[in-house]
């Protein structure tokens, strides 16, 4: 996994603050691969229902930018009350749980 311990800690802390305190977070995509280089940070977040998931994602991305500076983070957020999509299964099974 190509994330520093500080980045992992920031991701978990900010996700709990801006999405839901009980949200679970996985890293998936190219950053999982130790041999790859660069690449966006792809996060899959599973959460109990939130009022406005789109706004939660916006606040979370802005919070990452405040802490890390300019960065490219793609977020897939799945509310457990909604049906699961193929991307959710893929991210969870191929990803690494961060929290």
């Amino acid at each position, binding site marked *: 996994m190509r994330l520093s311990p500080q980045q992992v800690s920031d991701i978990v802390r900010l996700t709990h603050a801006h999405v839901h305190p009980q949200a679970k977070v996985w890293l998936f995509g190219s950053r999982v691969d130790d041999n790859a280089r660069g690449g966006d940070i792809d996060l899959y977040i599973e959460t109990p229902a939130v009022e*406005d*998931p*789109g706004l939660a994602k916006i606040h979370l991305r802005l919070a990452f930018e405040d802490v890390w500076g*300019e960065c490219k983070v793609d977020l897939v*957020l799945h509310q457990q009350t*909604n049906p699961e999509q193929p991307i959710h299964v893929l991210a969870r099974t191929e990803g690494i749980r961060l929290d």
Partner: protein
Amino acid sequence: MLLNPRYVPLLLQNWSEVNRCAHRLNSSLARLQVDFPLTGERLTTDDESLFERLDAFRVRYADLQDAIGNKLFRSILLVLDEKSINMADTLSKMEKYTVLLSVDEWRMMREIRNSFSHDYPDAEQERALTLNRAWQTAPALLQVVLAAEQYLQQLGALTGDSQ
């Protein structure tokens, strides 16, 4: 103010693009006036005409955001011979020139624009909320164009007074 003449044609080209995008976004706002605010339920209908209007609105919102953020801001700095170390610095300078009312408001509009293209909304309700957010902030996006026009007029960039 003396502007770097090398970059004035680029600024004018980008300004023209911003205006074209703003005009198109304004047309979309007029055509969608009766449809907003949207509900998730409305997005489950098979109203193809509504979806075409919404698709045009999404694209035009994003196009205007891109034309301002990726082109206009940079060309303003170029004609002023100002260096920018990163996007945060560019935005801070635009706020100083009163082209932006608030850096945070701009960042929010940029994230709304990004949420059209990068996210996987897992329900119609979420799509509706995202489109409503764009609808609510579209006037502020258009206001940036007006503020930029005022600033460019002060610089004399639109009248040739700068050269």
